[in-house]
């Protein structure tokens, strides 16, 4: 067992666990809001991954002193991934809010936010359409 390797990459292991948790929730949960939450966890895992990349061993916060007397000995953490993730967080929030807005509209039209019930309703609609417009491969092929 290489403990230094395992512990030294703790962030990355956690990233994988969190990413998989999120992805599992998205796939396994039937509740539309829970799916969005899963998507959020999935995205947050990626934020953690990026932040971990940016860490430089022994590095400090990437802020220059106000007098701009920069000591060449000082090691700074890479700030670029943080900036990227600020953008990704904004994107994540936009996705979440749009997703939830859609869920609200789905609730208004279908009166449920459970995927199974929605599928039932849609199958019923498709069946009626088949009766009216002729049978063929419809639905979710």
């Amino acid at each position, binding site marked *: 067992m290489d403990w230094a390797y395992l512990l030294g990459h703790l962030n990355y292991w956690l990233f994988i666990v969190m*990413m998989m948790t999120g*992805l599992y929730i*998205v796939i396994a949960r039937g509740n*539309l809001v829970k*799916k969005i939450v899963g*998507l959020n966890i*999935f*995205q947050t895992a*990626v934020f953690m*991954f*990026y932040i971990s*990349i940016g860490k430089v061993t022994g590095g400090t916060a990437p802020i220059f002193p106000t007098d701009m007397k920069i000591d060449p000995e000082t090691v700074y953490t890479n700030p*670029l*991934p943080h900036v*990227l993730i600020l*953008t*990704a967080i904004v*994107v994540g929030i*936009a*996705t979440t809010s*749009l*997703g939830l807005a*859609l*869920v609200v*509209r*789905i609730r208004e*039209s*279908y009166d449920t936010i459970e995927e199974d019930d*929605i599928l039932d309703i*849609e199958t019923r*609609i498709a069946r009626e*359409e*088949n009766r*009216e*417009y*002729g*049978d*063929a*491969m*419809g639905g*979710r*092929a």
Partner: protein
Amino acid sequence: MSVQDTQQAAMTLADHLPLLQVLVPFMAAPLIVVIGARRLAWGIAFAASLASAGIALAILLQVLDSGMISYHIGGWVPPLGIEYRIDAANAIVLLLIASVSTVVLPFAARSVAAEIARKHQTLFYAMWLLCLAGLLGMVATGDAFNVFVFLEVSSLSTYVLVSMGARRDKRALTAAYDYLIMGTIGATFFVIGIGFLYAATGTLNMADMAAIIRENGADRTIQTAFAFIVVGMGLKVAVYPLHLWLPNAYTYAPSVVSAFLGGTATKAAIYVLMRFMFTVFRPEFLFEVRALDLIMVPLALVAMFAGSIIAIFQRDMKRMLAYSSIAQIGYILLGIGFLTETGLSAAVIHLFNHGITKAALFMGAGALIFRSGSSFYRSLEGLGRTMPFTGFAIVIAGLSLIGVPGTAGFISKWLLVQAAIEKGWWPIALAVVASSLLAVIYVWRVVEVLYMKEPKSAGTRDEAPVSMLVPLWIAAAATVYFGFATELTLGAAQSAADSLMSGFSPVHAGGG
């Protein structure tokens, strides 16, 4: 590099074209919201779209004439600054996206008024422009993370556009929701891939990444990045097993949105896929992974047949067109999978030709829906007689979808067959022809419905309004035009394939 020096020296408006390309629709979108007048919204959207189409044409001509354009945003020099890097490959996709939007918008005026609630119409056009700006941005940029940001700008607005179909059919909401979930997973996979690439190369500039990968060779991190990027983009492209969002999204979206997305959204994603596969990861590296031979080509073949066969059995014109899109994406991926210059030219030219063909067909479907109220075959019966101009345009575009000689679809399929023969893959050449025969069947079903059945209101002419017919005919005529006048598309496609294969080096670009 004297070209670049003069570019830096004379910073006139013309030098800012690559930025204006994205910026014009991007700024016009909030303008629509701020002004908030429903009557002005369409005008602003059309003006912005027309302007960006003009810019795209100017850029394409400039690229074909004098090679790659590198634009530094804010004057920050790459690789640190964000760079827009436009060669023949992006220029032709930019032109496709901007011109499809411009042609479809006049069609939108009446169609949107009929299909979308009054209070949403202003914001609809703002979303349209945001989507356009996002698609243009992800194609124009040369910065990997920038691709993700623009991808999300276009995706988020696409979800909204799709959900606008809820007034006609509430299933548009679940279609948009499914698309949101899958699209976000795809985009997040893509951003994980970029994270790995950044970890391996320490840069986000695509040209810089390519240079570093070429120098240091590929390691496990880069292979992982490759896998994540291909799967993530594959979701947006709707590569066969990842296509599940597409049929519902295209079927239940408003007609104009289907026409716009069918012609552009997947195409922009395919471009990004090609750019990463060929420019960032080198083709030699692709050989090493053999991902293309073992995964891409079989999946493309499955898509060609499965998509076409499912399309045959549809009873709804829009859903049929959606499945045919999946099949046509198969052709494009097949061209990429050949890994030869001919194959890649075929992919690029089919991307362009299929874009206009699909836009024409979805507009045709939209015009029929405008009169009949639904796109089920049964309610379209005999409409070819009562709406002769619409019907005939659909037939022409349908011929191009099949790939009949004299239409744009023929050129690209011919090139694809040629590429297969060049590689000695006879069975695949035959498969392309065979799946085109399947296209004959599903296009014939539409013709049969439109012309061979008795119309419900016999004898009365009930043509679609002129504002719909003109865009429809422009698109249908373009499919014929590009079937004969192949210099522009073929030249651009070859030049694009050249620059994709040779990386970002400007030496090869400009040839035809």
